[in-house]
């Protein structure tokens, strides 16, 4: 009798876990928070998963028979503790944005050619991207000879890549971009990195991408501070590589954007 009760409980717990996972995915999609975990191009998969989880919930709760009395596998409640861990983390722990220390542990690279993102943007610009035409336009805009280069979340990957690949072509151009501060051990006091994380699939593959910035006020900005900068692109050597360096003309503190990552 007691076992029968345990089995009913197991059924209810299973149903509740399915409902919670489905609701979590659904909530992440409608609240837009999914973007801080995975690249939004997988949104449709997450929606389908939520739908599947809801259908599993309904079937589990209303149609599945409880285990038969002759089933020798006792219900194992401890298993469900494992499923509750990620749910509890998602609900109870505030904030889920990668911090600056992760960027330095991932290894910084300021030469577009070395970045995971670089090849992506190239390939996308040449038409693999479903929105390939947009990529083509932005690429042309990047090559144009005059005006301030505005780095936005949409063109971030292409711009950083293009400038990193051939810094000479962009030397002397003005640039305007948002990012956060990060340092390597071997940076001079007036230098820091200005980067953002690029998410290809999920946060687990986030790679820090950006430029080296020079400013006499550099010491005022701690690692992880979000800033809006204007500056001029110059060419320099760093770690035996030719890299673009931005000589800052103005630095403004900014709030962390609600969408802190960029997606190729």
């Amino acid at each position, binding site marked *: 009798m007691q076992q029968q009760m345990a089995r009913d409980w197991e059924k209810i717990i299973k149903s509740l876990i399915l409902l919670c996972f489905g609701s979590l995915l659904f909530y992440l999609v409608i609240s837009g928070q999914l973007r801080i975990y995975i690249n939004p191009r997988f949104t449709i998969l997450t929606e389908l*998963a939520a739908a599947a989880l809801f259908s599993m919930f309904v079937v589990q709760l209303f149609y599945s028979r409880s*285990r038969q009395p002759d089933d*020798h596998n006792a219900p194992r409640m*401890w298993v469900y503790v494992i*499923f509750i861990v*990620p749910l509890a983390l998602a609900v109870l722990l505030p904030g*889920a944005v990668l911090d600056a*220390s992760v960027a330095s542990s991932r290894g910084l690279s300021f030469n577009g050619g070395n970045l995971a993102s670089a090849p992506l943007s190239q390939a996308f610009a040449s038409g*693999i991207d479903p929105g390939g035409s947009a990529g083509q336009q932005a690429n042309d805009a990047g090559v144009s000879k005059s005006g301030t280069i505005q780095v936005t979340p949409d063109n971030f990957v292409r711009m950083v890549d293009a400038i990193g690949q051939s810094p000479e072509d962009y030397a002397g151009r003005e640039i305007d971009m948002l990012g956060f501060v990060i340092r390597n051990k071997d940076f001079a006091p007036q230098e820091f990195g200005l980067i953002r994380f690029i998410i290809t699939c999920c946060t687990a*593959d986030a790679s820090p991408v950006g430029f080296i910035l020079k400013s006499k006020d550099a010491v005022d900005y701690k690692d992880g501070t979000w800033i809006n900068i204007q500056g001029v692109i110059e060419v320099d050597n760093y770690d035996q590589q030719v890299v673009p360096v931005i000589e800052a003309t103005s630095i403004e503190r900014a709030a962390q954007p609600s969408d802190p990552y960029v997606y190729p």
Partner: protein
Amino acid sequence: MLNTVRPQMKQMSFWLLLFILLLIAFLVIRFGGSSLASFKAVFLSIIIEALPFIIIGVFVSALLENFVSEEVISKFFPSNRYLGILLACLLGIIFPICECGIVPVARRLISKGVPLSSAVAFMLAAPIINPVVASSTAVAFFNNHAMVWLRLGLAFLVAYLAGLLVSFFVRGNQLNASVENETGGCGCAHEPVAASQSVTAKLGKTVVDASNEFFEMGKYLIIGAFPGALAQTFIPRQSLLSIGHQPLLSVIVMVVFAFGVSVCSSADAFIAVSFTSSFSRGALLAFMVFGPMVDVKNTLMLLNAFKPRFVILLILIIFFLVVESAFWINVL
């Protein structure tokens, strides 16, 4: 018997929970609260990214169980072992199931009478030799398309040889007996598909089977994401770099790294490409071939589905095949 097992499990869950809490407390004190947010971000992102794929996996498995009879499947696979394994290696092209969802499908194929060797070859090859992974690798290595062909070729070689070795040296189906009985949820996993059952009844049973298997496999995904997220958050990648160009050691380091981080096979090429300048080519290939075949979450699922001795044997076979061939790629 039940009474002796239950308290043990309770104890285990208690210690597990205590361990997790202590570890998290230690990391918060050591690295500060914001690193906990990073950990949460990576941990949840691995799970959220993998959930759709594991759900696809358990649904394919449940559909196979309920709608495809054993005769159809055994007719599909040629009885000749060389041809059977060859076909299994290429099946991923039409069945692109990633490594999060492949183990339940492979297990289902075996319990439906597919030879162990073919099922193993399919399990190893499908997460790599499929259009999704091929194109993401091509995008990542856009200026080095040789890497795409090397990756696919190496995966094929490893899967084929592993399948062949299994077909010669391993007998029986190697499935865990206890699990075999459990898969159906109601202890009826081996009832033949009843032709008389209505489609609605079959569909209902498909969803029940899928959700049972979801719980069975999902827990390993969550446990596996844990060390993966720890490694991603707290191990500085520079610590790997000093050994990047030694032909053998670099390969072994990348294989161990692939085992630990548990990144999806459609994303790992982008991680590999970020190591291009600091790691040998063989090491990058080993990372992209070994990772989808064996990683923490996968190993846990394998241990659940197959006998432990067989899992260890299989991992050793894959390890030696991958390390050996990657080493030769480095040297030649």
